């Protein structure tokens, strides 16, 4: 399944500066693997050494945080928007 991926500024050096790129996969995990093949180095920044989501990264499929869905097993449907955001505070 093809999805658009919104890339935060901090990861754009891996995408040649692009804020929105494409990647494919039936699950978020597969999509991130494909993303890493298209943009070498990016996946290692999003996942921790154990293969889980990095503590300071929030990944949204559509408008929901995957930590509260099925994590890396969250299904990706055609045309979905995946957003990667670094953890920041407000207040």
């Amino acid at each position: 399944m093809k999805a658009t991926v919104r890339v935060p500024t901090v990861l754009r050096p891996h995408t040649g500066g692009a804020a929105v790129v494409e990647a494919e996969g039936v699950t978020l995990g597969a999509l991130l693997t494909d993303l890493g093949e298209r943009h070498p180095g990016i996946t290692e920044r999003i996942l921790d050494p154990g293969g889980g989501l990095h503590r300071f990264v929030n990944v949204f499929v559509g408008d929901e945080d995957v930590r509260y869905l099925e994590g890396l097993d969250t299904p990706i449907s055609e045309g979905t928007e995946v957003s990667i955001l670094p953890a920041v505070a407000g207040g």
Partner: protein
Amino acid sequence: MSASAARDDGRPVGGTPLVRLKHLSPSPAVEIWAKLEWLNPTGSVKDRVAEAMVEEARSTGLLGPGTRLVEPSSGNTGIALARIARREGLDLTVLVPDNVSNERLDLLRAWGANVVLTPGEEGTNGSISRATDLAAEGGHLMLFQYGNPANPWAHETGTGPEILGSLDRVDAFVAGLGSGGTLMGVGKALRQVHPSAQIVAAEPPVGETVAGLRSLDDGYIPPVFNPTAIDARILVRTEDAVAMTRRLLSEEGLFAGVSSGAAAHAAARWAQRLDEGVVVTVFPDSGAKYLSSRLWSGTLDEAVRRLGTQLYF
């Protein structure tokens, strides 16, 4: 009126109105209610937090006459602390990102706070790291909303019970994720009475544009925020937040700020999933602090462009 409402300067904190948003409900069986926190003394929910943190510090002897305070804030907590500092003759320095609205900076200065701007591209994370450095040098007390249990406590004992006193049923509580204090404190209070209530964070996409982080390892999760205490996290795009802010004015007659628009958008999204029930949200501040951004003029695209990369939560 809550126990914390009476203050020696006669200005009530808390006890804010809870209003029903009739036009945002997907059906008559789903109610959406919003607590209007801009009716606090300095116009935001943060008056609750500032009062609680100062009171706690005073009771433990950390704060007394002559204390010099330092605090990182995207504006509202700083403004709320500045009111108390002025009342009690304390010196206050607020570290604030330079991309907050001019109204917030003007209000901080009007209340007499020393304002130190930090790079907007680093977001609040930059303010936190510089305030932490300043506090480490000694001579200042940092109450630190992001790590101070008095922050969620103010909501657990104030905002939450006020909601419970007004509504017999709560199926979901939706609030913006800034320091995490509102979500944690209100969530805890509501769950004691309604154990199955869903606690939902509304997340603005600010992290997408924060350019000052060298890597994701520079990210920040406020210590008061426990991710396992919420049930979902909804991303709210700036255009959706602004669109809803305009809708709140035109349809509900509420002059809300952008963070309120973001919370309302997420609350309405959550309400769409319910066949029946009650969704409650918190509106942190009013449109007054966003007037210079002219959010209510021209097309939505123009309004979103004028807001630009301004920090609004």
